[in-house]
């Protein structure tokens, strides 16, 4: 399997979204934002949901509002953003669970096995999509590493 980098929003797009919101005074109508950014509704909602799951925005009613965490993220430098992002993804049950598995398997785990375990632990989630998310966000946050040639995910303990 190869990571499809465009299957869900990466950090560059999330930070971009937060910057647009910040420039608009921290709040915007969801519909208007989509129009301004030329985003299809599905694409916009996926992006907004991703930002919301990490605590960077809230979506009361039909609005989208930048949170203090979101402001902190765009105010941080390049590596500060990564650090904050890492803290935030570690609040997500999927990332917590997989991090625990990988702590027990120092050499890493085959992608297939992780997908299978995800299917069991999170029956409501698409294991393939979840795995792509783990690799893409995990890499950015320096939490997980992935060896594409061996299809293995492992805990990134730094160099």
């Amino acid at each position, binding site marked *: 399997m*190869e*990571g499809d*980098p*465009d299957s869900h929003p*990466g*950090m*560059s*797009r999330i*930070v*971009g*979204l937060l*910057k*647009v919101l910040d*420039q608009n005074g921290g709040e915007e109508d969801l519909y208007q934002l989509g129009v301004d*950014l*030329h985003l299809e509704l599905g694409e916009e909602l996926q*992006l907004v949901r991703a930002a919301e799951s990490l605590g960077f925005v809230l979506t009361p009613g039909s609005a989208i509002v930048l949170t203090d965490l979101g402001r902190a993220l765009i105010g941080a*430098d*390049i*590596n500060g*953003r*990564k650090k904050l992002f890492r803290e935030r993804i570690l609040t997500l049950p999927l990332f917590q669970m997989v991090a625990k598995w990988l702590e027990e398997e120092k050499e890493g785990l085959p992608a297939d096995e992780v997908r299978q375990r995800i299917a069991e632990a999170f029956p409501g989630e698409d294991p393939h999509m979840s795995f792509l998310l783990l*690799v*893409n966000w*995990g*890499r*950015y*946050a*320096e*939490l997980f*590493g*992935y*060896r*594409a040639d061996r299809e293995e995910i492992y805990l*990134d303990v730094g*160099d």
Partner: protein
Amino acid sequence: MSGLPTNMVTMAEPFLELSMISQEFLEEGRNNQAIQDLSLSISEGEFVSIVGPSGCGKSTLLRILQGLIRPTRGEVLYRGRPCEGVNGDMGMVFQGFALFPWMTVRENVGIGLVAQGLPGQEIDRSVAFYIDKVGLEGYEEAYPRELSGGMKQRVGIARALCMEPAILLMDEPFSNLDALTSLTLRDEVLMLWQDPEMSVRTIVMVTHIIEEAILMSDRVVVLSRRPTHVVEEIPVDLRRPRDRRHPDFDRLSDRIFSLIS
């Protein structure tokens, strides 16, 4: 975050100059004048954007600056001296990223240093440093096909910075990225430019996005249609970080737009 203090910009000594550059191409047996008597002076520490109508030879101009193309007439002066061949003090960031698909991020970033024949340990140290600086740590073993456009361009930037150039040339660096990713990367390039640990003090960027030029640079150089020459140089003295809602933003943008169209 603000621009470099003005006392760091050496105004007295010309840093980088294009002097009466002309470029002719042979096209279907006819001599085609692409650039005509173009002169431009860039100070050390300056961020200069070059804008102009499409096909006006903006990219050619960058290649002349770097010494990859020898102009038909005129000369490039660097620190007061005429340049011969490729200028080793310059790094280039490309619109299409120009990554080797069979190489990992780490290998792509270090390719220039390997070509220079540096010892392995030194290469590893330098590559790790610049990978960290551009925020690519965690992606070292990834292949380009696994990366989003934004991450690919970070590899391109790290590869250029790795050579520790004094001047960074950027050829439409954000044109292949979606709007939100471009916003983030522009921001990060400005952070790197202002980072005292970076060797790069001077940036010359070609772009066709007027807003990008105003948001990022100290001066916007507007070029004409072919045969290309400088129409006007517009200083941008808006405070950084810049906000496109600033009233002067539209004024500058309208001015540049009217010169191009």
